[in-house]
């Protein structure tokens, strides 16, 4: 009989560094037997990294993990699984053409003599276990034919089949419909009641309040606090998540918007990857001489919105004008119209990591180096060297591959390229992502200079600090719509956070689980 006072999992002072980058700074948390423990935080806070360490996917740099009171150090997930830890990833790891039973037993197949697969036993056991936990699953169904919610159940069953007592669910609701989410929460509750401990990673506050027993809030690689889900409000969690402690304020004068709309979006509607309405009849505008920040929890349509403006995604409705020119269906046209775009996706979109820095800095400026069909590579390299100096790209020479730079310096390469274009509208997505504080300041200062030079700057960031500090005006996007338009000077993180959570109209009522889950996104 386990001692209830000893936590099932105890993680103390976990540190994780990737090279020079510290992803987890001394994080500690305890997981009790039979609890649903929510781990919340903004994207990039380190939630998944921490859980990957617990699951044995990543080695920790420092710190201790005790499992049922015993110190453990897993070299790989196999060892974690053997000791009763299971993890369901955001992206399912199932073989689509196999049956439910086959997927569940995959890796620990019941065998008959001579190593033959005991299919009948596999199906019988699958059926038994799915009934035991109230998960209604046909063992013979082919995975590819199942809806996402059921595939997730298979993942959960797979962990349970390996006798997992601690179940880590990484953003399990991200892919689910509200109906499926409700069913998942019911399953989680019944598992917890039968003695399983569940760690539930999310950044959706409502779900946290709806289902968890305790909540650990993570921010910038630290667990800030662990609180009971009693008498706690969404506002409090939101404040913890987005943080109030380190807020950079950029020194800047009052904006003087000229009223000339360099970005004008009217009634834009766009579909996401799964065909859902990601941007829903959205309108916004950015005038010359102002910085507008777009705040929002990730996945509320900001990616699709920016892709539409950049010409990377076709909207299904609405109009967009860039510097007075109607939107064109490809990036080239919109760049010609006067768009500079610093994408969040540096690796795939904003840079070619295998190419040299000078090449990365030259794309989009080719016209400057054209002499008939010929190309003045030497001049392009010279200019790259100048930009490297001007934008303080550390460790760079024009011929080095962009991928050899640290994330922050890669960001400077894109910024140098985009901001030196003769473009009047600047869209910066997560401009300070992966960049440390000194560089953030420089980037923000540059954006302010651009504003003061009469350009329009549109900043899209998941980092609320950044949005508040750089913007003159803050827009909040929620479920594909702009739900707030605030003057940055007159608002604060709490207020914006509330809009971001979509909680402006319905204050969270803790404990009202059935009602709450009906509204879960």
């Amino acid at each position, binding site marked *: 009989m386990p001692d209830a006072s000893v936590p099932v999992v105890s993680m103390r002072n976990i540190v994780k560094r*990737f090279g020079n980058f510290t992803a987890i700074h001394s994080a500690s948390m305890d997981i009790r037997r039979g609890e649903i423990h929510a781990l919340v935080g903004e994207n990039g806070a380190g939630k998944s990294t921490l859980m990957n360490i617990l699951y044995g996917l990543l080695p920790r740099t420092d710190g201790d993990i005790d499992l049922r009171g015993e110190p453990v150090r897993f070299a790989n997930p196999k060892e974690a699984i053997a000791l009763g830890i299971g993890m369901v990833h955001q992206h399912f790891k199932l073989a689509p053409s196999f049956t439910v039973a086959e997927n569940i037993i995959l890796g620990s197949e019941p065998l008959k003599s001579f190593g033959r697969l005991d299919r009948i036993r596999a199906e019988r056991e699958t059926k038994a276990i799915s009934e035991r936990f109230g998960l209604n699953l046909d063992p013979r169904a082919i995975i590819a034919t199942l809806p996402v919610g059921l595939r997730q159940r298979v993942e959960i069953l797979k962990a349970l089949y390996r006798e997992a007592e601690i179940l880590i669910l990484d953003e399990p609701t991200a892919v689910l419909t509200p109906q499926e989410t409700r069913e998942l929460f019911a399953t989680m509750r019944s598992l917890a009641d039968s003695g399983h401990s569940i760690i539930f990673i999310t950044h959706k506050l409502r779900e946290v309040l709806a289902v968890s027993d305790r909540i650990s809030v993570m921010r910038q690689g630290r667990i800030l606090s662990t609180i009971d889900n009693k008498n706690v409000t969404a506002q409090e969690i939101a404040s913890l998540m987005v943080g109030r402690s380190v807020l950079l304020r950029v020194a800047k004068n009052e904006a003087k918007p000229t009223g000339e709309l360099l970005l004008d979006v009217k009634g834009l509607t766009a579909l996401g990857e799964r065909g859902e309405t990601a941007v829903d009849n959205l309108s916004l505008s950015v005038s010359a001489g102002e910085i507008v920040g777009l705040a929002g929890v990730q996945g509320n349509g900001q990616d699709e919105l920016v892709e539409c403006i950049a010409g990377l995604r076709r909207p299904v409705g609405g109009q967009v004008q860039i510097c007075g020119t109607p939107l064109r269906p490809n990036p080239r046209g919109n760049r010609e119209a006067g768009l500079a*775009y610093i994408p969040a996706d540096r690796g795939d979109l*904003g840079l*070619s990591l295998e190419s040299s820095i000078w090449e990365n800095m030259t794309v989009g400026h080719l016209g400057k180096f054209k002499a008939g069909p010929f190309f003045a*590579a030497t001049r392009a390299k010279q200019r790259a060297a100048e930009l490297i100096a001007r934008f303080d790209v550390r460790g760079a020479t024009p011929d080095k591959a962009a991928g050899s*730079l640290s994330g*922050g310096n890669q960001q400077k390469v894109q910024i140098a390229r985009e901001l030196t274009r003769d473009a009047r509208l600047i869209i910066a997505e997560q401009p300070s992502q992966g960049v440390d504080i000194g560089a953030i300041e420089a980037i923000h200062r540059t954006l302010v200079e651009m504003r003061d030079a009469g350009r329009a700057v549109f900043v899209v960031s998941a980092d609320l600090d950044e949005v508040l500090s750089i913007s003159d005006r803050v827009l909040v996007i929620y479920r594909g719509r702009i739900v707030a338009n605030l003057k940055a000077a007159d608002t604060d*993180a709490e207020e914006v956070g509330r809009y971001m959570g979509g909680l402006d109209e319905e204050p969270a009522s803790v404990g009202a689980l059935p009602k709450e889950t009906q509204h879960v996104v």
Partner: protein
Amino acid sequence: MSFETTGSGPGMAVLNFCRPAVQPIVAVLIATIVGGLLVLALGENPIEVYGLLISGSLVGVPNLLVTLQMMTPLLFTGLAVAISFRAGLWNIGAEGQMLVGALFAGVVGYAFPMPWFLHLPLAILAGFVGGGLWSAIPALLRVYLGVNELVVCLMLNPIALLLTGFFATHVFKAPGPTNKLPDIAPSAALPTFSVYSQVNAGIFIALACCIIFAIINVRTVRGFEWKIMGLSPRFAYYGGINVPRRAIWVMILSGGIAGLAGAEQVLGQYGAFYDNFSPGYGFDGIAVAMLANFNPIGVIVAAFLFGALNGGSGVLQMMTGLSKYLVQVLQFITVLVLAAQFSWDWLILRLFPEPPPKSPDAVEPVNATPTEA
């Protein structure tokens, strides 16, 4: 003189210049060793065999001329593949494009006699057009319907073979037991130079093409755009490069050059379009391009190597009992090692995505003070 450890001294420049050649050289070395073991297993002396391969391909004018003959089609097909792969387009259809180009050149070569200064260029152009048209099919399907060009190219190869075969056996067949078109007019022939070899003026066209594309690659806007497209198509598109249009034209150029291989064969080596004439020059072109690291000058080197292997093969067969397959095995091993190196890089990348590079200057010092809100 000393090699500098940092920056861009002359030593570094030499090293940087050589770096792309390291992989192919290693591949050739490994193939040589494995091939040597194979020869040993066959009961022959590897030193002797390699000696014969080298002397049979490089020593003496006849052998050298044969090597040049063997390398000419590979110059074209290797270049064709290199151009497309460098731009990120997997044109593995050079074989089919060459066949169609050859048919076009063969038809123009015999059916429309005219003065040589018109006829020869026109017949060569026909080869280019034929190959280009054939490669336009995968290009357009790729750009407008999103169909994978690799698959389409692969399927178009046998179609080209059967289609050109149909023309050679049913439509334009010359009398006689061989399925071929009538002989081309002398006015369309690429002149040959020796009884020893069918090497012809086409090799100059091939070399010129390689040099022209080497210049295009490094000295023109298009060459720059192709490179960026190849490494990162999304980035290129985002950065304002008209990727779809470039893709179509790169494929057509690539196919056209493969078509020139066909023209060279018909106008220079065969003197007529023969059904099923190619022993796989288009596929060898893929190996040549890989060995060349998709560099047009590298194509010259790699095509020469493959040409020498095939040329030496004849002498090897004549002097020992070894069959032609030994040389093919050597080529296959080279390609296999190269492919293994590619997948090895990929594997390393998959297994160790972290950590980011550890250069001492990778992290910027904090020089701004955060302020409390």
